[in-house]
């Protein structure tokens, strides 16, 4: 039996996490993500979970990683400045293959910027913001419904691939209230346990090793140093480093098809929008107001790993138009994968693209 609610996006995110079995939240308040923490503070204690407000965002993500090693589904939520502070430990999570969910309700940057207005300026940061090479998963919701669903999915992906998963939402979606249908229950893909007696960092065929949960007698050593399959540091061994880092990247990149989540609308169109997050709504409005096959739409829910083959499904595409609330961050990525012009439609300042702006762009390039 589903249930209807009229919820704020941030509430839906917190509820999606709870439905997915999240039992640890470590966070630090920051606009426009704070409602997620506040909701967790109310709800988690009632579900035998732990809410803790840490001293800063560095500690928040650290506590989440620590909690994850005890087997708990764990998350944090923040926005730009806090996200920047998490970068070092995000790299640690990637290196140690710690499942965790990090929500970023994006606001206008750089720096303190526009604390209360929406943006999508951290899309490259979530992929490249920590030092060294690694891979992550990033999902972008465009509605309150998706705030719920994608948050829940983030936990499953995190556990399956043992990787930090980002819910890269934005203030527009985080703060708006709309209708949401709450499912009866949410699928929970369990974390694969390490087979006792096997090496803790030796991958299975999916390139992901089983999880040696703390307290279960594995006696595992977890380190952010380059480590061998026993988990022991071997920071001066070039071969082991290469093998490890390549695997960390490959386990995500090679699962691109499975992780990718997107819609192809009007694959025969010549003018094709590509969008994720709040601008999706404007594209949808434009398509609704101008029905027919002449506008195509690649609507992304997964941005990282980027589904690089998806634009190719628009066989007749003569150009891709990419409305983003940033200076064309994902447009850069798209340029790498297509041969036709990529028209970045950046918008800064906190306001969502209007339908007429997108129509004007369609006209300008037709």
């Amino acid at each position, binding site marked *: 039996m589903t249930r209807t609610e009229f919820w704020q996006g941030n509430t839906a995110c917190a509820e999606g996490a709870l439905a997915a079995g999240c*039992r*640890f939240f*470590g966070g630090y308040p920051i606009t426009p993500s704070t409602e997620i923490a506040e909701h967790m503070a109310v709800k988690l204690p009632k579900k035998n979970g*732990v809410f*803790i407000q*840490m*001293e*800063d965002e*560095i*500690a928040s993500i*650290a*506590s*989440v*990683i*620590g*909690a*994850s*090693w*005890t*087997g*708990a589904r*764990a998350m944090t939520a923040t926005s730009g400045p806090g996200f920047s502070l998490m970068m*070092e*430990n995000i790299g*640690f999570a990637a290196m140690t293959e710690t499942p965790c969910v990090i929500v970023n309700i994006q606001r206008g940057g750089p720096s303190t910027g526009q604390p209360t207005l929406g943006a999508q300026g951290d899309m490259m940061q979530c992929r490249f913001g920590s030092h060294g090479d690694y891979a992550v998963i990033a999902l972008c919701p465009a509605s309150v419904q998706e705030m719920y669903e994608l948050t829940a999915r983030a936990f499953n992906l995190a556990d399956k691939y043992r990787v930090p998963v980002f819910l890269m939402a934005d203030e527009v979606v985080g703060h708006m209230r709309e209708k949401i249908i709450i499912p009866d229950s949410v699928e929970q893909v369990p974390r694969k346990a390490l087979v006792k007696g096997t090496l803790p960092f030796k991958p299975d065929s999916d390139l992901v090793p089983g999880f*040696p949960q*703390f*307290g*279960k*007698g*594995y*006696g*595992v*050593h*977890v*380190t*952010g*140093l380059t480590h061998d399959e026993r988990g*022991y*540091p071997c920071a001066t061994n070039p071969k082991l480093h290469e093998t490890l880092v390549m695997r960390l990247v490959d386990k995500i990149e090679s699962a691109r098809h499975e992780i990718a989540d997107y819609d192809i609308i009007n694959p025969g169109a010549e003018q094709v929008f590509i969008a994720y997050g709040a601008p999706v709504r404007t594209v949808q409005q434009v398509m609704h107001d101008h029905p027919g096959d002449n506008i195509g739409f690649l609507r992304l829910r997964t941005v990282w790993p980027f589904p690089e083959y998806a634009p190719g499904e628009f066989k007749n595409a003569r150009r891709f138009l990419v409305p983003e609330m940033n200076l064309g961050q994902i447009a850069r990525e798209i340029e790498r994968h297509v041969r036709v012009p990529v028209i970045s439609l950046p918008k800064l300042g906190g306001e969502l693209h209007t339908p007429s702006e997108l129509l004007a762009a369609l006209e300008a390039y037709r």
Partner: protein
Amino acid sequence: MSYEEWYRQDRLPHIYCAGCGNGTIINCTLAALEQMAWKKEDTVFVSGIGCSSRAPGYIVTDSLHTTHGRAIAFATGVKLANPDLHVVVITGDGDLAAIGGNHFIHACRRNIDLTVVCMNNQIYGMTGGQGSPTTPLGCLSTTTPYGCVETPFDLCDLAIAAGANYVSRWTSYHVKELEKAVLAGLQTPGFSFIEALVQCPTAFGRRNKFKQVADQVEYLRSHSMLKAKRDRLLEQGEHIPGDMFVVGELERRNRPALGVKR
């Protein structure tokens, strides 16, 4: 002696320099642990980055070797998410009090049920001997080439001011006392802080006129003053030389704690 079983024998000898005091502190910590009736699988070691922070890599329990300064924040997550685990943090003066100072005082304030052992060699050993927040005034390091001009922290005073339930200080000379202090820390609900002053012949001793390892250990012995004596001298209005430091149990109280086993 059975605390030897707590070592990962396959990883010994460790990477510490000859005469480094860290190995001694691990011995004392494990000897104390051995006296608790805890299973290895219920115990977790957490550390940051530094020579000292390498310790958990030599201990058979589950262990989390994290990022520089953040051990206590990670440990907070481990402990709160599963209060049935016994969580011990091993850290260094740089890790705990330089980059990690904030997590330290906040964990004291919250009285998270952790036992934190700080190997204070008054220097950054791992990176080759830069000054730390506990480098004594006037001492030489690669970043205080003209002598340290910043007053060092008294880590125990900080822990007390910040709210920790148990605080004591010893040195690598005082192996038995240190073992007992760690034991008391393990037994006390809430945040327990044990500071162990240790010799670092490579990065500290060499630059500060300690020709032999033993000279620095002897210095630690001869410059430590029991709390009881210090209090007595203070009471009598007597002068306590600036280069002496207090050892002993410095705080034990029962403020509200977080993460205590249910």
